[in-house]
């Protein structure tokens, strides 16, 4: 078996010299970060040789510290769902800053249609509408949420595609509008007490199930469908995409719609998990979602990245967050450190791209 393989026109190429996929680098980074926290647990005097990842106190049946793993993955699942959409937007050469407030606005609206009539035998004290809105089938709030997401996304997309406003500005405006809608909906009052079937959507490990299901769906969309191919093409060279007969404007609207529908679904899962919706929900979610994508190797200049990368990026994000808590780093420092990590990820990515460009 020779490592050499035939190319077109009799040229040979060495398959073993093929560069690693970027996702592999992120996976290595994930392992390294886990190892660093593991080592810190042994080195730092106040840690009493606790393990970060492993079950050293025989609390669980497996070798892993299941409680921590569960927290990590639950923490990232909901923002992870948003980051699946943000990934597609960034690959297409755009950015979406409106997802955090969109989560709040959608949660407020959806929760109003998911309320139960009686709480412990008493009328629902947080009712938004009259009795007609109580105990509706769970599909009603879900559809309303997705429709609202699609509506906001289509406005984002239409503004960006047809008025040539930079995506940063268009979605920044939508950021404020959505936060305003969230506060206006009940004049700041939280909306609570959902039906049992609605509460099931975000109960236990359900957020993780949704995250993984949607990740598989988005991976298939981006990798195996015309939609995905055109998303990459537009982000890579918009003029070439247009000259190839791709309807770039319509496609952009579609990309932003899908991203906002994913954010809306994240809002459904989040409000179900919390059993309440508040206008202040989703703080920094848009930035964390972008961070997950960027850490996962999605290039802010468009055309490059993958769902697998973003899922790994989300895990890196979760591990770092959990690791900071594990080494008892103050919450204030945690946010600062997060900012530094996001900047390093982008710098690293640019450095990698420059090196790749210099090679060719």
């Amino acid at each position, binding site marked *: 078996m020779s490592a050499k*393989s035939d*190319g*077109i*026109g*009799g*040229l*040979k*190429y060495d398959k073993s010299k093929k560069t690693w996929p970027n996702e592999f680098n992120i996976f290595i980074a994930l392992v390294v970060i886990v190892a660093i926290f593991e080592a810190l647990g042994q080195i730092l005097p106040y840690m009493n040789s606790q393990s970060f990842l492993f079950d050293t106190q025989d609390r669980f049946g497996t070798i892993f510290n299941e409680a921590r793993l569960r927290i990590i993955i639950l923490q990232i699942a909901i923002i992870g769902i948003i980051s699946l959409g943000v990934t597609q937007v960034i690959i297409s050469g755009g950015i979406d800053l409106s997802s955090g407030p969109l989560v709040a606005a959608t949660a407020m609206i959806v929760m109003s249609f998911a309320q139960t009539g009686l709480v412990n035998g008493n009328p629902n004290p947080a009712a938004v509408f009259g009795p007609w809105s109580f105990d509706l089938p769970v599909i009603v709030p879900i559809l309303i949420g997705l429709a609202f997401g699609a509506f906001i996304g289509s406005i984002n997309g239409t503004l960006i595609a047809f008025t040539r406003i930079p995506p940063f500005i268009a979605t920044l405006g939508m950021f404020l509008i959505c936060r305003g809608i969230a506060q206006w909906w009940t004049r700041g009052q939280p909306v609570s007490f959902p039906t049992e079937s609605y509460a099931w959507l975000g109960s236990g490990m359900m957020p993780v199930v949704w995250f993984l299901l949607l990740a598989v769906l988005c991976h298939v*969309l981006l990798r*195996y*469908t*015309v*939609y995905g*191919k*055109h998303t*990459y*093409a537009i*982000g*890579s*060279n918009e*003029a*070439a*995409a*247009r*000259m*190839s*007969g*791709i309807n770039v404007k319509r*496609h952009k609207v*579609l990309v932003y719609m899908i991203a906002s529908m994913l954010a809306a679904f994240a809002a459904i899962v989040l409000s179900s998990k919390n059993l309440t919706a508040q206008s202040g929900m989703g703080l920094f979610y848009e930035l964390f979602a972008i961070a997950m994508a960027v850490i996962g190797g999605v290039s802010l200049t468009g*055309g*490059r990245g993958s769902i697998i990368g973003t899922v790994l990026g989300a895990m890196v994000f979760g591990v770092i967050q959990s690791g900071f808590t594990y080494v008892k780093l103050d919450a204030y420092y945690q946010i600062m450190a997060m900012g530094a990590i996001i900047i390093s990820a982008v710098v690293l990515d640019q450095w990698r791209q420059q090196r*790749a*460009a210099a*090679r*060719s």
Partner: protein
Amino acid sequence: MSGIELHDMGDIILETRDLTKHYGGVHALEGADFILRKGEHVAIMGDNGAGKSTFVRQITGVEQRTRGEIIFDGHPVHFDGPLHARKAGIEAVFQTLALADHLDVPDNLFLGREKTWMDWLGPFRFLDYKAMRQDTIDALEKTGVKIPNIRNTIQNMSGGQRQCVAIARTASFHSKLTIMDEPTAALGVQETGQVENIIRTLKEQGEPLVLISHNMRQVMDLVDRIVVFRRGRIVANLDKDETDHQDVVAYITGAKTQPEYEVAEMT
């Protein structure tokens, strides 16, 4: 044949009448009458600034003409952009490449006309990677293009390989007319040969071509007819078999002008 002329003149694929383009006071193109027959390969030659690229930009809809008529495939046409011209069947390879850097060779070859299955899914229909890859290999092998691994992204390829992909893409469209503007200007000897092979393939397939080139050897090798531009005007229309290197150079530099074009030059 004066007065009313028939637009469907049988074997004519492209005709321009009095095609003129002024940029403000600059007369970049003046009264170009040009005919291209089906299956014919014609070279356009001339010095820099002679009006070659301006001529092509009017035909492909990149710019809007000041005056004149373009008759394509039997109909007068007004293209409002290059995409419009492409949809009508005019395929152009421009000096600036139009490839998506982050996609591989089959993706670029089939961009915008992907092979798919489960088409009822609309924009979410599935790509038929296998068929596209096989067609790419067939198309490239037929033209002798050398690319080590077609699954590499375009950004990792040499300028020559990129140009070959762009031209192979054009050739694979089976368009009614192909226009190439300096397709080998930046290429090495071997890569130039590959591009010329693609052009020969087009000839065998009977697809008409307008080739802008400075390369005399290439022009003499490839085309049937040479049209010379000088200072915005056509000054010669030469059958390749009835002319030679020195003759063409004489027309390009202004030492000679064909009698039928002299009147135009006086005015």
